[in-house]
């Protein structure tokens, strides 16, 4: 299986302090990769490298390589707006724009210069369906997205990401601010779209990682301790630290 994104010896420094110590990690196409580890282990920092969200943090330097379809995203030639269209992101707190559901989901398309109304209409509908929120919003597309529940807002945000048809979707604890039922809906939707998208998800919820991911990467103190198939990692991890973390002995 081809890899959509590949990190090699990726190091990130805050000033002189090295926060990521040479990460090698592949993201196989149309697979869900879970990044787990205690707070401060570097998993979110790593995730943010994947669409250059750390660019604007003062004093950050990055070395090594991070390739999207074999092209280094940190190359000076990379257009960051284009990169973020190809590498979408969903955050912990739902962050819809303060305008209508329709305009939220159409936002990325319009930004990308698409003017064909019929196409936009169709993409909005498809994306909302893929995000498993269509039935709940179809009669309220012109209502302000902020008027919906947290779980619905998060699915609208996911639809917004799906609309631009990214190659990889980054999710930073997308369900930790939601109740279990809403979280379950998002897990279901991730499983249902995984044949079309590649997903990297940071989660503190071990059950979530084990239920939905194909591959799991365990981070600790800025290092990638272990990566493997989720089945193997959860049933017989190679490293003692992984086993201890999964069993709640630390973190």
């Amino acid at each position, binding site marked *: 299986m081809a890899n959509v994104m590949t990190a090699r010896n990726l190091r990130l420094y805050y000033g002189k302090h090295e926060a990521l110590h040479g990460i090698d990690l592949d993201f196989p196409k149309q697979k869900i990769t879970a990044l787990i580890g205690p707070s401060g282990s570097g998993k979110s920092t790593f995730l943010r490298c994947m669409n250059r969200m750390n660019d604007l943090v003062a004093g950050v330097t990055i070395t090594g390589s991070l390739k999207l379809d074999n092209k280094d995203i940190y190359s000076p030639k990379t257009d960051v707006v284009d990169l973020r269209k190809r590498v979408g992101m969903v955050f912990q707190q739902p962050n819809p724009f303060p305008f209508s559901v329709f305009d939220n989901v159409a936002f990325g398309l319009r930004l990308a210069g698409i003017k064909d109304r019929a196409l936009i209409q169709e993409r909005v509908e498809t994306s909302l369906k893929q995000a498993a929120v269509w039935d709940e919003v179809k009669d309220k597309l012109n209502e302000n997205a902020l008027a919906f529940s947290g779980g619905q807002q998060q699915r609208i945000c996911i639809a917004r990401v799906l609309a631009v048809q990214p190659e990889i979707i980054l999710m930073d604890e997308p369900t930790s601010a939601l109740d279990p039922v809403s979280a*379950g809906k998002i897990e279901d939707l991730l*499983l249902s779209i995984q044949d079309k998208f590649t997903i990297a998800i940071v989660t503190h919820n071990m*059950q979530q990682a084990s*239920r939905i991911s194909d591959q799991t990467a365990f981070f600790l103190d800025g290092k990638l301790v272990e990566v493997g198939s*989720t*089945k193997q990692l*959860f049933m017989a991890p190679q490293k003692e630290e992984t086993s201890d973390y999964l069993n709640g002995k630390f973190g």
Partner: protein
Amino acid sequence: MRGIFEDELKRLHGKFTEMGINVSEAIYRASKSFIDHDKALAQQVIEHDEEINEEEIKLEDEALMLIALQQPVAADFRQIIIVLKASSDLERIGDHAVGIARESIELKGEQRVPEIEDDIGEMTNNVRSMLEEVLDAYVKEDEVGAKQIAIANQQIDKAYANVREKTIEMMKQDSKVITGSASYLMVASYLERIGDHISNIAEWVVYNKTGHLAELTPDHHPEEN
């Protein structure tokens, strides 16, 4: 999420039932090979046991994966546990069928006692219908049916005690039947143990339904009676 777990569970139960049918067939063929002195059939039972063992390993592997990745609790948890426990009972039943088949191969035209062979044939039929009933109770989660099976097992214990008594009596009277009778004792005791494993499966059916671990037939070993 529920969907995936339920589908996997359904598949697992289906495989368990399939394994049960294979095991029932193995008992039938093993016993037939013994009564008919059919060594080729006995050999088939022994070879086929590999498949039963593999079926059990696959079931265990999938059940363990569901436990580790889906982390079920309460009723879902019990469902997985019973697959694990009951499939190892089925596997043991398969081993006892092999034991019977091995006795068939050991037989060397010894003097036969038709009356005891009839008893063994009847025990086989009873054990097989118990197995079919327990598989049915398993699928239907039928606690009442499962309890009936444990009662039926007491009949198997009695039948075993009866065969044992008769065989020993024969051996006392006629030393020519001793070698063959040793096989009768072995085969009857395999069938008796098969009954115990079926009874165990019945206990898992009850556990699945109620959450209580129950010994349905305490102290039923005929040796202790």
